[in-house]
């Protein structure tokens, strides 16, 4: 099989992995070394594909042969997709050739399980080792970890990669059991814990010694599939928040379950729920940067996020008693909860506040979406009418109008990275 065909098959097989991020590696350059590559700390998107996603890495599978039968996966053993297999040398060469032409920041390598988890993991590590040791490659490497592989191999992976990830895919043990019989939640969590240890140790080393090795995993991430099972947004966000807390994951990716070729009949055959995915990313963002708890974002009687409005606005409408917020006196954590106020604008407001009191036109200049913020704020020259905050339904109707039917499955503009 020629290289073109292999690349086509193994890129196709990798495209359901949402992650392509390249931020958060250990900064380094290749100046003064015989090698090539650098990591600047902030990722670069070298291209964008028609699905609006960033292309930052050469994202391929080493092979899409797999002995597992995870029903949501296009590469599962019982699927009839065309199969191919790269040699480690081929992946190394492709990575270097693409890197030299400035197409990519580095490599994101994953694999179907062939022969055994250890054998597969050994192959993945071999590619990273060749790049780092033989070619002194100093660009970015993200390795997908095979959960069942032995500790020694996982440890070696964290020495060469900037990021390692284990895809949890399904948020509950029961879902895993039903759709991914070979996966085991406890095992996944144990591996994540192990990886966190390696990351922490490496960070400690770097803090103490300047001569600490320049390559060492600095972060780990995972992916959850949305819409393949009945799991609610509440469950998904709850799972994410424990993952962020217990394993210090830098990202949880949400991937709208998209019909795959050769799909199993246990799965929905519907367009991917892109709007739901979008709302989950927004909610995730609120948990990480806006001080929201997972439990605040949904309600027991409505465990899914409202698709018609962003989760912060939905939260504000459920908590009208906390509004209006005085822009000139409120503390930072409360300003962050105002619909339409982003982190950057909150900081600008706080800075401006030291010199003069903030008025409505200042917010307009900062390009705050006023229609969204107005009912919830007070400035030195503006107070919302009292009855506005008393009629939740009327207020809600301002944001969700009948003539403004949004396409719930349509494509929201979303930066994934």
């Amino acid at each position: 099989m020629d290289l073109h065909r292999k690349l086509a098959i193994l890129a196709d097989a990798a495209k359901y992995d949402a992650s392509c991020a390249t931020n958060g590696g250990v900064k380094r350059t290749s100046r003064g070394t015989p090698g090539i590559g650098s990591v600047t700390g902030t990722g670069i998107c070298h291209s964008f594909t028609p699905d609006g996603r960033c292309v930052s890495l050469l994202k391929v599978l080493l092979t899409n042969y797999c002995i597992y039968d995870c029903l949501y996966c296009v590469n599962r053993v019982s699927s009839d997709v065309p199969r191919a297999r790269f040699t480690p040398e081929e992946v190394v060469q492709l990575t270097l050739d693409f890197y030299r032409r400035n197409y990519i920041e580095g490599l994101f390598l994953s694999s179907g399980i062939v022969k055994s988890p250890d054998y597969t993991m050994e192959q993945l590590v071999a590619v990273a080792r060749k790049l780092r040791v033989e070619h002194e490659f100093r660009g970015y490497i993200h390795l997908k970890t095979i959960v069942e592989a032995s500790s020694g191999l996982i440890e070696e992976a964290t020495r060469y990669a900037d990021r390692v990830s284990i895809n949890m895919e399904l948020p509950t043990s029961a879902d895993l059991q039903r759709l991914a019989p070979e996966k085991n939640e406890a095992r996944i969590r144990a591996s994540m814990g192990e990886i966190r240890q390696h990351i922490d140790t490496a960070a400690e080393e770097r803090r103490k010694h300047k001569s600490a090795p320049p390559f060492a995993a600095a972060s780990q991430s995972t992916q959850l599939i949305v819409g393949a099972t009945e799991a609610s947004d509440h469950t998904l966000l709850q799972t994410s928040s424990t993952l962020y807390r217990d394993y210090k994951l830098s990202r949880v990716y949400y991937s709208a379950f998209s019909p795959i070729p050769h799909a199993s009949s246990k799965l929905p055959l519907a367009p991917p729920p892109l709007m739901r995915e979008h709302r989950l990313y927004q909610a995730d963002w609120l948990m990480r940067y806006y001080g929201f708890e997972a439990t605040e974002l949904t309600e027991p009687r409505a465990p899914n996020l409202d698709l018609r409005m962003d989760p912060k606005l939905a939260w504000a409408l459920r908590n009208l008693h906390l509004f209006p917020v005085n822009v000139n006196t409120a503390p930072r954590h409360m300003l962050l909860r105002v619909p339409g106020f982003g982190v950057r604008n909150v900081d600008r407001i706080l800075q401006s506040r030291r010199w003069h009191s903030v008025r409505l036109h200042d917010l307009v200049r900062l390009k705050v979406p006023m229609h969204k913020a107005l009912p919830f704020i007070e400035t030195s020259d503006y107070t919302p009418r009292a009855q506005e905050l008393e009629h939740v339904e009327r207020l809600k109707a301002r944001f969700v109008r009948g003539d403004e039917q949004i396409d719930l499955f349509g494509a929201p503009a979303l930066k994934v990275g």
Partner: protein
Amino acid sequence: MQQVRFEPTFEGWRNAARESLARGLPPEALSWVELTSPQSALDLTSANESHKAAATSSQFRIPRTYIEIAKTVALHSSPRRWALLYHVLWRLTHGESKLLEVPVDPDVIELMQLESAVKKDAYRMRAFVRFRGTRLGEEPWFVAWYEPEHDTLALNQKFFAERFANMRWSILTPARCMHWDGTVITFSPGARKVHAPAGDGVEQLWVEYYSHIFNPARIKPAAMQAQLLKRNWKNLPEAAVIEPLLREAPRRTAAMIARSEFLRVRETDYGLAQPPVGADLQELRSAAAGCRACPLWKTATCTVFGEGPRDAHIVLVGEQPGDGEDRAGKPFVGPAGQVLNDALAQAGIDRRVLYVTNAVKHFKFEPRGKRRMHMTPAQQEIAACRPWLEAELRLLEPSLIVALGATAARSILQTPVRVTQERGRVLKSEFGSTLVTLHPSALLRLPPDKDFRAELDAFVADLRKVRAAA
């Protein structure tokens, strides 16, 4: 209105601004005129005068952050930038020294916008420069053609030198070119697109990769174009395929869904096969002929039940009937059956004393043209069919079961089995000893690096163990 003529670089503007500031000229009294050639700048102010001006301007305290912002803003292509820079400088030095800390001030907002446009343009260059491989004498040389919106080439010299340290490279732009020989950066006058080399084989691989890494079921052209500006397209090799990919995406998705729809069966379509209690082999066979436990019966020709003597000591279990078996109604009569017969003969085993059956008793396939292409049975089909296999094994009580391939092994042992690892080993199942080996059809689909002869020998070696174990 007084004209200030200056060389349009940060340094040129700074000298002129210093002097204007020293003379106490307010922003509204000035008009900024860019000089096209650098020499003419000398005509305007005598060396003496500018020296005096510099001395005066040192009385003004100018925040360091302003200088940093001004250096960046000077690279912007807007002719308005000089007047804006002076306007902000004037305010900073006339009672508003903290001006930059007021992010809602309209002048500050405009200044920041220009700064961020330049930074974004520099970022785009780091992202969208595409090198092409060529040679300079014997040495590999990587050359890119790029058209920045602002004067951001030099801003990126550190980035490219630190990243592509061991490469000889050049970035050509209309205004200037930047070169790296492995040690130092040099600049030369501007070039044209024709000076850059043509794409090579790697570029084709890149376009191939780009075409396959996106999901046609979730296209978002607006999201893409918000990031990949149309004006960048002309210098990106992958941009040539964007339009065709967008055009084809809906058709590809529809075709995929239609195909899945065809193969799709609802979970409720699956039951469990119900073998009659206390039936003998013949009765089982007739009952299985009408089995509707899974939907495979709809497309298959007939049920292919097991075959062999009632007193067989050894039972061979395959995956499912193939095209030939489905037509003949007998197990292992097609190409895989040929391989099996061959191997059995070499192992010295008489097939007539064996009972031969399959884990799934209907043929699962996908029509492709006039052909019926084999498809691996799904878990549900294996589970639905298992009661038949169970009934056969309970009745025959063989001393050894041979599981041919992963499907058979999974069905008998009720757990995923890695055949490549377990082959040749005798495992315990609820029905007794079970020898695991390959399915003979695996020998018909060997990857090119495997030798058929050697693989067949290994298969025969596994089968020889049957005699020892039985």
